[in-house]
Each structure stands twice: as structure tokens, then as C-alpha cells.
């Protein structure tokens, strides 16, 4: 792949570490799901900050490369880090742009989904028996902090856009405006129906019109 403009490949030291982590994760995945990725390539463009990496299925692992030279990846995903994480882990592709073969992306999502990874066992294999408890607790605490930070960040961003920058209408204003629009639409619809009925009645009462011969005001009637 020739990386898209402004996309820098991740350095080898980082992709090597990532490959280790991803494959450690996939070890707990269904073997067939990983095997389906063999020979396929999935490029990921993280914007911002404009970094790229490629997952390339090998016979025994999912390779993580900085870029793929001289060939187009089967599928390219582009989006923010949060949107990409949601797309790869949860299957929510709403925030990412997908170019290429979506079936390959589905295979990757299947491989990544439903993995029950034994973090405690893995940590203890690295740091020794009994060490996993405090580390996992610290990890849970960190995850809680990050979750709260993300929620607060979203709320603060909405407040800023609404109250300071005035990019969004104040709370309640949009709803009131939407109700007014709905009411106006109903009133207009009724008015239009009324006018149409009046036009019909007017046409029916006009002298010399085709409707007048049989209409209620015609000379031969009644």
C-alpha cells in the first residue's frame, strides 16, 4: 500500500510490541476465525494523529506492519482512535470510513470478538505468581478513571459547544423550535386542505362550468 497522504507508518519497535500483544490476545480466540485472515491485509489509518498500520494474516499469526508496500490492502479503515476501537472490537462501524472488502473486516472483528483472555495468568507468567491481583486492581482503577474522564470530557465538550462557542442551540431550545415547526407543519397542512376544499366548492358553484349542469344550484335541479 502506498499510505494515504499525511499518514505515517508506525515504527517497527511499536508494531513489534503490538504484534506480540495482538497475537497473545488472539491465542484465546477461535482458531478458525484467525485462520480466515491468512493472506488478507487490513490497513488502519488513525486520524488524528495521522498514523497507519497494517494487519497482515500469516500462517501462524496476525502480522502487524507499519505499511504494505507495492500493493493495495484488502480493506482500509480510517477514523479516530475511539471509533476504530469500537469498529474493531464491538462491530460498530458508524464512526469509521471503510474502503475495500468489508468481509475481511468482518473476519477480523469475529477473531477479536468473544475472546476471553486470562490477563491474570499472563501477568503472572511475566511478573511471578501472586503479582497479578494488585496489577489487575490497578488496571481496573485506571479503566474506571479513564471511563469517567471520557464521560466528563464528552459532557464538557457538549457544554462548551452549547454555552461558550454557541455552535449548538441552548438546552431545550431545539426541542421547542422542533415543536413549533411540527405545529406549523400541521397548521399549514390543514390550511392547504381547507383551500383545496374551497377551490373545489367554488369551482362547483361557478356558472357555465361542467359541474353546474348537475350541481345543486343548476336550473333543472330540485
Amino acid at each position: 500500500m502506498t499510505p494515504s497522504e499525511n499518514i505515517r507508518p508506525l515504527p517497527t519497535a511499536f508494531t513489534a510490541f503490538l504484534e506480540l500483544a495482538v497475537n497473545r490476545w488472539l491465542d484465546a480466540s477461535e482458531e478458525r476465525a484467525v485462520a480466515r485472515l491468512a493472506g488478507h491485509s487490513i490497513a488502519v489509518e488513525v486520524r488524528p494523529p495521522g498514523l497507519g498500520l497494517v494487519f497482515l494474516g500469516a500462517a501462524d499469526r496476525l502480522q502487524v506492519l507499519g505499511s504494505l508496500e507495492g500493493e493495495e490492502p484488502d480493506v482500509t479503515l480510517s477514523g479516530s482512535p475511539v471509533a476504530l476501537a469500537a469498529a474493531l472490537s464491538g462491530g460498530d462501524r458508524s464512526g469509521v470510513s471503510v474502503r475495500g472488502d468489508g468481509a475481511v473486516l468482518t473476519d477480523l472483528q469475529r477473531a477479536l470478538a468473544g475472546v476471553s483472555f486470562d490477563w491474570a495468568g499472563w501477568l503472572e507468567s511475566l511478573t511471578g505468581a501472586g503479582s497479578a491481583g494488585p496489577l489487575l486492581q490497578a488496571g481496573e482503577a485506571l479503566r474506571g478513571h479513564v471511563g469517567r474522564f471520557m464521560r466528563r470530557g464528552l459532557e464538557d465538550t457538549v457544554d462548551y459547544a452549547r454555552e461558550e462557542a454557541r455552535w449548538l442551540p441552548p438546552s431545550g431550545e431545539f426541542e421547542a423550535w422542533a415543536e413549533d415547526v411540527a405545529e406549523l407543519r400541521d397548521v399549514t397542512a390543514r390550511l392547504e386542505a381547507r383551500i383545496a376544499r374551497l377551490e373545489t366548492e367554488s369551482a362547483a358553484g361557478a356558472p357555465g362550468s361542467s359541474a353546474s349542469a348537475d350541481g345543486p344550484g343548476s336550473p333543472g335541479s330540485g
Partner: protein
Amino acid sequence: MSDEEERGKTHFGYETVAEEEKAARVGQVFSSVARKYDLMNDVMSMGIHRLWKRHTVQRAAVRPGMRVLDLAGGTGDLAAAFAPRIGDRGQVAICDINASMLVAGRDRLLDEGRVGNIDFVQGDAEALPFPDEHFDRVTIAFGLRNVTRKERALAEMRRVLKAGGRLLVLEFSQPVAPLRPFYDAYSFKVMPLMGRLIAGDADSYRYLAESIRMHPNQETLAEMMREAGLEEVQYENLTGGVVALHRATRF
């Protein structure tokens, strides 16, 4: 090719020797260092050679079922990385002119349980014993500078590559200017000393340092690859140009 080479002379480190003599003398060097080659690589590069090779494997981007030729493959670092990635349907051929290096590589890979899709071939890079258009990837790591006629070797690498196949040459090169004084001191003082202490052979490591200086720089090698008929030639410096990874495609 220089006038000297045209008259059948070439470099062996800083010495000028007859072309037919170089292969034998390089053979002596590698026979001498084969047993402790991996250890010396780790010590002298402070382990960085693993990252350079890892980067080469990444750039190769191999897939299951591919055929890979690891030229001057010696102790099999690259082959050990390629073999599991290409799987049972693929094939890695380690080709080295030096039997001692091949034996060291074969023993090591057998000890690691890497068997089945790896072949060991003793052969000359200037006359490869493989059919035309046979491999998807050809790699040569820290081997090209020891080849007597590099132009012939590059042409042979092109010949055995399939259309669309890629060549990757990992080799010592010319570091950026600020690094050169330190690099020279390290190469000519520290390397032979460590060679003497660890492998008991200072001369061989002095040759390795000298051969690096005599190897074409980045641009010259890129031009040689183009002249050999390879296309999309590009290179990247690693560790400030101490090593360069040249890549090219055969169409």
C-alpha cells in the same frame, strides 16, 4: 565497475586481491567466526541487529504459501522468522556459500524445532542454483558486501524473483556525518578487541569493519540495483545510516 575490478582485482577489506581469491578468503573468515557468529552479533550491535532484521521481516510482508530465498542466510535469523509465517505450503531456502555457516544455521533451526519448510543450499550468490522466476521474496542480510561481483549477484537475484517479487538487501552502509567519528572508533578499536576476546579472532572482525567501509554507499547500491533491472528501488536508513535496507521489485 572500477578500472581495478576490470583488471580482475577486487577488495578484501582494505586489501586488493584477485577476484578468484576473494571468495576463498571470505570463506576463511566466516569459517572462523561461524560458531560464535550469533553471540558476536548480539554483543557488537548491542542487540540492535535483531530490530534491523525484524524490520526487514516486516518490510518483506510475507504471506502463507510464499517461496522465500534467504541469501547468505548463514545462521538463519531471517529464515527462522519467515518459516512460521509462510506455513507448510510455503518454502524458505537458506543459501550460503559457506558450509560452516550453513551447518551452524541448520543445527540452530533444528534445535528450535523449525523443520519441514526450510531447505539448506550451499551455493554462490553469483550463480544461484534455482530456476528463473521461482521466489516471491529474496532477502540478503549482511551478505552482499562479501560478494565478489555484486552486479552479477544482483542480476541473479532478479532472475530468480517472480514478476512482482521483491528483493530486500539489509547491509551496513554510510552513517550520517555526526555519527562517523564514533562509528569509526567503534569499528576499528572495539570490534577487533571484542572479536579477540569473544571469538579469539581479531583479524576476522577487522576484515568485517574494513569490508563495511569498502561497501557501496546507499545511493551507489540503489543505482546498482536499478542497473540490474530491478524497479521501484528505494532505501531507508536505520540507526542513522549505520545500516540501510534497500528494497526493489521485479516486474
